Structure formats: C-alpha cells, structure tokens
C-alpha cells in the first residue's frame, strides 16, 4: 500500500467499527488499534483467548514446477525439504544480508493428489516490496506468483483456551495438529486453512478463508470466546503481546540495515548445502561476529522507553531502543533494542534516555514471557 492512497478496509472493518474498534491507518489498512482497555485485551489473550483480525497481512501464492527451488533461492531457510502441511518462519534478505522481510512459508496441499504450491504470509508494510522482489528474481524459472491478499481474510485465535474453543467446531482434531503445521478444513460451511501459528507467545491458531466468509466465522468465534473470558483484540495489545514474547517486528527490530545474525534469528538461518540471496553475506556475518546484538531490557520505574530512545553506558552511546511498552503481565516497562556486543550480557546495567531524563535499565534474556508448557 502506498502512503498516499486511501487506506484499505478488511472484510471485518464494519464489525470493528460497530463494536467499538478505534480504527487507525496501519500500513495502508484501517485496523482496530483497540476496542477497550489494551491491558484488558492483553490479559484476555494471556488468560483465555484473543481474536485478532490480521487480514492486513500480505498473502501470496507461489506455484508452478519451479516454485520450491525458486523460494529456496530467496529464503534463509530451506524450502525444498518442506513436507506437506509444514510451515516455516524465515527471512528474505538482499545480497548484503539486510532483511527485506520476515515471512511464514506454507507448504499448502490444495487437493487430494497432493499437488501443492506454497503460501507466503508477509508483513503488510512490505507486501508490495516483496511481490516486486519475487518477480524480479524469477528469471527463466517456471513460477507463478499471485498476490491473493484481498481475496482472502485472515484471523488469529490466541491464548490458552484457543484450541479448546476451536476444536469442537472443526472436523479436524486440532489437538493433534503440531505447532507450525496447517490444514485445509471446512468450518461453518467455508473452506478454511487453519494453522497452529501465532504472534503472541500463546498457543493458538490462524485461519485463512475466502474474504466473504470471514464475518460469519468471526462472529461465531467471538460469541464462543465471550463465554470463556475471551474477546476481540486490537493491534495495540498484539504489540504488547509480541513484545513480551520477544518477537521482532519489521520496521522496529528488523530492517534492511539489520542482518539476521545481529537480530538473534540464527534459528531462521540454514546455510548447509544450499544457496540463496544474501547467503555469502550471512556466512561472513557469522564468521566475523556482530558488533551489535538485539537484547531485552527491563526497567524498575514506570517510565516507558520508546522506539528511538538512546542507550548509554557512562557517557558513551552504546545502542538504541527499537520497541518499548509497559508490560501488562509484569507491570513494568520492557523494551527491545540493539546494543554493542560488549554490553549485551544479561545483568548488564545500562542507562536509557527517555525524553531527556536518564533511567536505569537491565539487560535481560529474551523472551520476557514464556507460556507454561
């Protein structure tokens, strides 16, 4: 979405507006930032279940005989060995190893003969860039790239009660679905792709279905959620939830001037026996070591460090905050940022400049929050 165009509406826009959603322009989409208190929405997700409209995320289908090898040449993790139904988090890098986006790759199985293509879910803010990047990399391969974002809607159910809410409503036994896998199934008369994925640190699912079917499904799930202490949740609590879970957000912890090694995303880099755009740079980054790394920060008082706040040690500037919030779970300010590797060890005390005043912060391991297993 370009900045000067009218923001797009998801198929759930009217529902949000009719149910107290405060609508804001986010990456070219009118999205609910909150319906009520952010803390209440956050706690509903941690304690029961939160429902999120994430239809703004970009949805791409990559098909054709060369689809697997094509994606394999562009993603930091292997694609060719993905099994049907499997989903992988990985990064798209440029030649310099800078992060163009972080994406989920879905090995989708669309029909009984197991013929399959791939789905890519990309950040809303990067959708046009990634579509253009993919197209520029096709060369003579036989690949079809389709941007199906507006043909489908996408929602997330997240929280300790998410699976028990959805399981009785679907023909598939969700409790047996492994994390980071997905399945096509019929739900409420609509064909849905349900995956055990999310961005909150909780167990849960994400559902993709045809755009005109989502309102009924959403309302049914909302009705069920209300019975067990759940509710709709806006982007503000989605941010506090992912921050507590130590998950990076593109535009904050990730950008073209940050590489996956310093971002602490080694688990999403697979260098063995394969080649992809940015690989040489990543090999070099790993060999050299990184001069800055992503860390978690915890503060004692109630002032909240925000994106852009400078991090100091003594008089010298040693880093910057990329995201910060007041953690509803821990009831104290938390932040993520990049600091020099020499001051990145957990327990290190730093100073944060919050609007001209210095506050003490301690480096802590990520994630801040990990759900009970």
């Amino acid at each position, binding site marked *: 979405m370009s900045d000067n165009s009218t923001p797009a509406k998801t198929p759930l826009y009217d529902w949000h507006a009719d149910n107290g959603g405060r609508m804001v322009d986010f990456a070219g989409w009118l999205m609910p*930032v*909150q319906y*009520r*208190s*952010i*803390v209440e929405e956050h706690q509903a997700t941690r304690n029961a279940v939160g429902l999120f409209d994430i239809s703004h995320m970009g949805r791409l289908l990559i098909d054709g005989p060369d689809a697997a090898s094509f994606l394999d040449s562009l993603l930091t993790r292997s694609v060719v060995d993905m099994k049907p139904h499997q989903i992988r988090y990985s990064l798209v890098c440029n030649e310099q190893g800078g992060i163009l986006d972080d994406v989920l790759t879905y090995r989708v199985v669309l029909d009984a003969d197991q013929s399959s293509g791939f789905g890519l879910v990309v950040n809303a803010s990067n959708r046009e860039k990634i579509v253009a990047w993919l197209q520029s990399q096709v060369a003579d391969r036989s690949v079809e790239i389709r941007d199906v974002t507006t043909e489908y809607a996408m929602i997330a159910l997240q929280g300790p009660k998410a699976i028990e809410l959805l399981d009785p409503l679907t023909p598939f036994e969700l409790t047996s679905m492994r994390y980071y896998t997905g399945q096509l199934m019929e739900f409420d008369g609509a064909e849905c792709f349900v995956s055990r994925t999310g961005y909150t640190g909780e167990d849960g699912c994400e559902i993709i279905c045809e755009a005109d079917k989502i309102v009924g499904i959403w309302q049914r799930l909302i009705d069920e959620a209300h019975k067990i202490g759940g509710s709709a949740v806006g982007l*503000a609590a989605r941010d*506090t939830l992912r921050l507590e879970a130590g998950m990076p957000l593109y535009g904050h912890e990730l950008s073209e001037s940050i590489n996956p090694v310093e971002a602490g995303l080694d688990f999403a880099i697979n260098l063995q026996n394969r080649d992809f755009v940015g690989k040489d740079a990543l090999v070099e980054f790993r060999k050299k070591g990184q001069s800055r790394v992503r860390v978690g920060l915890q503060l004692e*008082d*109630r*002032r*909240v460090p*925000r994106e852009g706040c400078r991090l100091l040690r003594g008089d010298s500037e040693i880093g910057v905050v990329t995201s910060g*919030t*007041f953690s*509803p779970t821990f009831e104290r300010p938390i932040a993520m940022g990049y600091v020099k590797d020499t001051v990145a060890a957990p327990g290190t005390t730093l100073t944060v400049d919050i*609007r001209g005043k210095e506050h003490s912060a301690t480096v802590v391991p990520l994630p801040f929050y990990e759900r009970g297993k």
Partner: protein
Amino acid sequence: MNPEQLLFAKTHEWIAVAEEDGTKIATLGLSAFAIEALTDLVYIDLPAVGRKVEAEQPFCEVESVKAVSDIYAPVEGEVIAVNDALPNALETLGDDPYDAGWIAKIKITDEAGLNNLLDHAAYQKQCNEEAH
C-alpha cells in the same frame, strides 16, 4: 466541577480560573475525552512546584501503555501546587477528571493565553470531530 463551566485547551486540558488575594490561579486537569482516548495510564510526571511555565508549552507528561503524551500549560505562570495523590492513584484521572483528578495549580502571570481557550460547547465540537 461541572465541565460545562470550564475552559478547555485544544490540547485537551481543562482549566478553572479563580481569583485569590488579587492573583488569578488556574487549576488544570485532563478532559474526560483525553483520558478515555489515552486508556491504560501507567505514570504521570508531575511538574515541580515553583516551575515557571509558558503558554502552550508542555510542562508535564502522562504515560500510557501505548504512548507518552505532553500536558500543556494554557497560560504563562508558575506552578504553585500539584496533586501529589495522583501518581499512586492514576485511576482518579478517569474516575473524577474534573475534581479529584486535578493535576496542577498555576499562578497566572500573563492572562493572554486564556483568550485561546475554548468553552465547553466548542471543545465538545472539536472532540466530536477528532472522534471521526
């Protein structure tokens, strides 16, 4: 206080002006609309008593989960009192914005700023526009 009898800044502060011993004192707080919009307050940074303030300049801050917001002085003057109870009872700002939720009292040294304030009806109009 009845909000209909208060003055409001475009930046969402309410102001009540009273005369004590020949000097004008402005009591200031945040409007119910502002508190509702902020939600999830976590901190207020009260100004120091004795601090000189300038009209339409920030002089203290309120922090919510989502963002930090400046509170602006409506007039030039000097802070002569702050509501010390607020930092440990931020809910007061929302529960009783126009009485117990007052934030600071300012001794006015230049009244010019008062001319830029809105009456309740004009402020409501601005809020209705912002809400859409």
